[in-house]
């Protein structure tokens, strides 16, 4: 027994020395901390960037705009590049958290489709470079969900009692309330407290039917047919569909959320130039293609769009038509009193 422990300890010591030495062999010009959504990049791109530019990348992930924001304002970590969604970008701009980009360091910005520049969350496009876009869709497994129930392509499917126990819901209040508000015919950005109360009641009504409130766990649960119905992001549907062809989707007729996730540099960044180099690298055509293929979300990169397989760019859910897009709604930053209300309603839903 003692021998085994001694051996194990020796192994650990030798191994840790080896890693330290290996680390020393490589001296980088700079180090940047990149904070991105989970499953939101082709990971080989990072090591390629490190090699090509001799800049070390510490890559970490989050699964929610709100938790990313909290981490940043708590000042517990220094991030350089973050990739938040639209409404969070406008919140961060208004709180002076983002740095103005020097676009002369990001020449590949010219590849970004004009359609995705100067959007409402960053009207003069000074702070952000669009990375992906897409809409929320409703996923269903057509092995279990009958054709007539999806005929109307409505959000109501998520409230259909026939499928009690097999429905998943967003574990994030902004998306969940967005769906409930739309279901009632209100705006996702409503600032009317009565609308929020009605939406909360709607979610309360749905809770007994819900199997689980999830984010990234949705992949497992939909692929293994643990659940039949779920709302999620169009790009992720494609990833799920590739592994289980029974999972179909539609853009809800009541109107979906349109989102744009953009790369930004934090004001507190100590390596702004290296961070901009990273953003520029992400906008190189072949890199953008690889990322788009890996994550399945729609790309705003014109070069990548052309290079991608027609079966992807022709997909009506990942790249919806102009008419469909006209019915969508982009989240805006809500005032703090509504956010507090949202938080209270959400916790009440969970503790009930």
């Amino acid at each position, binding site marked *: 027994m003692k021998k085994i422990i001694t051996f194990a300890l020796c192994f650990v010591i030798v191994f840790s020395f080896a890693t330290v030495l290996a680390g020393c062999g490589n001296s980088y010009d700079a180090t940047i901390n990149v904070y991105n959504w989970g499953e939101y990049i082709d990971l080989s791109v990072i090591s390629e960037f490190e090699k090509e530019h001799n800049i070390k990348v510490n890559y970490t992930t989050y699964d929610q705009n709100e938790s990313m924001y909290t981490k940043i304002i708590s000042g517990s970590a220094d991030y350089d590049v973050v990739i938040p969604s639209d409404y969070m970008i406008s919140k961060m701009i208004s709180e002076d958290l983002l740095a103005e980009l020097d676009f002369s360091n990001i020449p590949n910005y010219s590849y970004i489709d004009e359609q995705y520049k100067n959007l409402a969350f960053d009207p003069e496009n000074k702070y952000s470079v669009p990375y992906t876009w897409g809409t929320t869709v409703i996923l269903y497994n057509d092995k279990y969900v009958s054709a007539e129930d999806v005929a109307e392509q409505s959000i109501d499917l998520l409230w259909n009692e026939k499928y009690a126990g097999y429905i998943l819901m967003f574990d994030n209040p902004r998306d969940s309330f967005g769906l409930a508000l739309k279901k009632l015919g209100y705006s996702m950005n409503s600032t009317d407290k009565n609308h929020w109360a009605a939406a909360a009641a709607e979610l309360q009504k749905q809770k007994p039917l819900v199997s689980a409130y999830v984010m990234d766990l949705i992949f497992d649960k939909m692929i293994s047919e643990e659940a039949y119905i779920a709302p999620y992001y169009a790009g992720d549907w494609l990833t799920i569909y590739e592994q289980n062809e029974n999972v179909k989707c539609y853009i809800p007729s009541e109107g979906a959320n349109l989102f744009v996730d953009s790369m930004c540099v934090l004001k507190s960044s100590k390596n702004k130039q290296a961070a901009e180099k990273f953003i520029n690298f992400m906008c190189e055509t072949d890199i953008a293609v690889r990322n788009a293929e890996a994550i399945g979300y729609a790309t705003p990169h014109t070069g990548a769009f052309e290079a991608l397989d027609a079966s992807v760019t022709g997909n009506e859910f990942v790249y919806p038509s102009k008419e469909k897009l006209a019915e969508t709604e982009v989240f805006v930053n809500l005032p703090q009193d509504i956010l507090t209300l949202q938080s209270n309603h*959400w916790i009440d839903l*969970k*503790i009930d």
Partner: protein
Amino acid sequence: MMKTKKPFFSAKNLTVTPYAVWMVLFVLIPIGLVVYFAFTDANGTFTLENLSYIKRYAETFWLSVELALISTVICLLLAYPMAFIIAKMPTERQGSAILLIMLPMWMNFLIRTYAWMTILENNGIINRFVGMIAQWLQIEFEGFSMINTNGAIVLGMVYNYLPYMILPIYTVLTKIDNSLIEAARDLGSSSVHVFRRIIAPLSVPGVISGITMVFVPAVSTFIISYLLGGGKTYLIGNIIENYFLGSSGAINYNVGAALSLLLMILIVVSMGIMNHFDKDSESVGGGMIV
């Protein structure tokens, strides 16, 4: 006689300093911050308003305590006989038995809990297996619904924290002086009597530290309830996490701290009660680990 001044750099001081610094930095200051945040508002002025949230979440508090208590009792019922059996094994086999109990802990806690998800799901291992047998016997089988229930949360707690109950009980049992048992036997005690009068009282310190080490993490967990409860049952740990991470849109360290403070008080009080039971029995080395 002249008073001798103790030198500052005495061996005792030198060995104690790192622990003292550690305790101040990572125990006292954080507790101080929790207390400070609990009694102030966002602007730092004194308020008692945060405490009103305790009333609001009283039910969740009770649910957390209830689930943690159930898990602790189950752990105790499972762990005591287990520890007893191991302690009675030949010495050379005890090491490997303990190693087997520790083995799952070499894997990350999260991954182990994820694994339970796959076991308990409607299409999970248990349901598929039973379904196969039912098909073979040609019996109608609708499947057990286990995942996303409070039962699944309790199971996750018991599974994850069971070793923390077994180990301290095992430690005290092996430390019991065998001559006491032999003496009792010589004086004509039955096995039941030996257990009741000697082994049970002497193992109390191990049981108490086991209970503490299971109850405390169980009452404050948030990840087990999320993964195995389907995010539908918020325990108090989830609410605190929510206020600190701002995941539902509004960060509120003050309310989070007030709830944490109550949780800490709850834990300290329950530990005090447990230690009270421990008072009479003489501590056998390696018992209390808190």
